[in-house]
């Protein structure tokens, strides 16, 4: 396929993905806005003032980047896992498999869809956050943008892998419920790991989400529990590993070919 044709195929996959989640915006874009509003009201307005400052910021300011990142992670993941599993379940993934679309293009299309939803939801939640707290002038816009995009790519890839292995609809909710949610909540969204005993601080460092949340918080507030270079290295490493694994699975036809 020529580059122009490849680009047309890519645009088709992405446009189909965008249409899908925008058509059901009540299920995809509204819920994060509502639930994140509740987080800001309960943790920020009601409990936050009793906690005081954290890292030199009000509790509301401290948790805002984590909450934004939490919604980006959840939505990037759930967009790709539900869309690709749906395509497998209804078998319309075959439309792409019989066409001369290379595997990396299929992957890129779905990941772009996940990133798009992650970014839109991230923007919505940021706007919601601004109703509750004043986020200072962003400390480092480049870090903010790159962490958002890379994290979104990473969790879109994770969603893609989950969708490939899932055999039924239960399988696409098990990982988000029992793996993703605990990792997010223990990933420094609501607290600084400095508050934890030393042993738990060390254990927390094994949680990849900690690096993303802290890198994003650093980009906005300029404070972080971990070295920003390590955070980027970890994120990029996971992206490389998961991309390679996803392509390997597509090449083998796992879950999509018999």
């Amino acid at each position, binding site marked *: *396929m020529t580059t122009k044709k490849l680009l047309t195929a890519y645009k088709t996959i992405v446009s189909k993905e965008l249409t899908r989640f925008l058509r059901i915006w009540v299920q995809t874009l509204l819920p994060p806005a509502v639930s994140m509003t509740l987080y800001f009201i309960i943790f920020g307005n009601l409990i936050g003032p009793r906690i005081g400052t954290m890292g030199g910021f009000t509790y509301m300011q401290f948790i805002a980047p984590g909450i934004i990142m939490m919604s980006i992670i959840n939505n990037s993941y759930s967009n790709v896992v539900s869309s690709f599993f749906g395509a497998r379940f*209804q*078998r319309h993934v075959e439309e792409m498999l019989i066409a001369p679309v290379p595997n990396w293009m299929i992957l890129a299309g779905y990941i772009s869809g996940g990133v798009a939803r992650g970014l839109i939801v991230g923007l919505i939640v940021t706007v919601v956050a601004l109703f509750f707290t004043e986020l200072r002038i962003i400390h480092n816009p480049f870090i903010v943008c790159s962490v958002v995009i890379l994290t979104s790519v990473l969790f879109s890839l994770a969603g893609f892998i989950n969708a490939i292995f899932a055999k039924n609809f239960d399988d696409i909710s098990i990982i988000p419920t029992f793996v993703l949610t605990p990792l997010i909540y223990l990933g420094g969204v609501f607290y600084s790991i400095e508050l934890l005993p030393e042993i738990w601080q060390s254990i927390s460092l094994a949680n990849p989400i900690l690096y993303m949340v802290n890198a994003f918080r650093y980009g906005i507030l300029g404070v972080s529990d971990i070295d920003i270079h390590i955070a980027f290295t970890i994120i990029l490493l996971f992206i490389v590993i998961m991309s390679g694994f996803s392509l390997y699975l597509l090449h083998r036809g796992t879950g999509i070919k018999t």
Partner: protein
Amino acid sequence: MKALEITRLEKTYKNGFQALKGIDLAVDEGDFLALLGPNGAGKSTTIGIIASLVTRNSGSVKIFGLDIETHPAETKSQLGIVPQEVNFSLFETCLNIVVNQAGYYGINKKVAYDRAEKYLSRLGMWDRRNDISRNLSGGLKRRLMIARALLHEPKVLILDEPTAGVDVELRRSTWGFLKETNARGTTIVLTTHYLEEAESLCKKIAIIDKGLIVEYGSMKDILAKLYTETFVLDLANPLGKLPDTAEFNMRLTDPLTMEVDVNRDQNANALFETLSSNRIIVRSMRNKSNRLEELFIRLLDQSGVYYRQERGKDDYQKAVNSI
């Protein structure tokens, strides 16, 4: 030039079921081939491998001389696939489904919309273009899949039971469309359980059973292998007793209906002479069953399976020749 060339194709599924045991098949450009066989014979597996939806264990599939594994983009561009099961999004409009499919082949939107109008119109679906696909009847869903498979204007169209469960009117119009498509130069490979469909549409036939091609040739040559045909005669007057003749095997199903077996070395004229000499007037005459169906059933009967499995292919071929 061979449009499709399958060589020693084998497939064993993870559960140990050997669906294909080394089939060979060659389809010339412009041919219209029917791939026939009972359920589980290996038809859909063969199509799945050609479509890159099923992985093969060994053997090769070539489209216009190019292997589908080493030249996936080139070969996929030449193929249009209509699967047995509905495999489009049930939440999209018909128009979006076909236009998106064109996009996967790198066709720009303008061309895609023009072709969508062309093929949906030819299949009588243009008025339904904005309908959500799940609201279509079974027959229209199959037609939508045909339109979708043609959007990139493939040279080879492969259809897996395109008229299964479709009413007679839609089936006949689909036949017309396929004949027209073949006449325009598209090579067509079709699987079907309607042997009447195969006999009416196809120039060549391949019969597959238990993962092996057991018969392959032109429709005419294959039908010529049918040794005995049974005709049903509608009589003008009730008949109490069969004419006394050793030449033909006759039986009465009721006083006004007679069945007669005619062998390949006999002819209908001799039959009518016998009937006339016995003052039997025939109002009309028809084949008891579709000729291809008769041959198909005889080919796949127990003896065929026995000969092929237990005594080898040569003995089996002798048995087939004696049918």
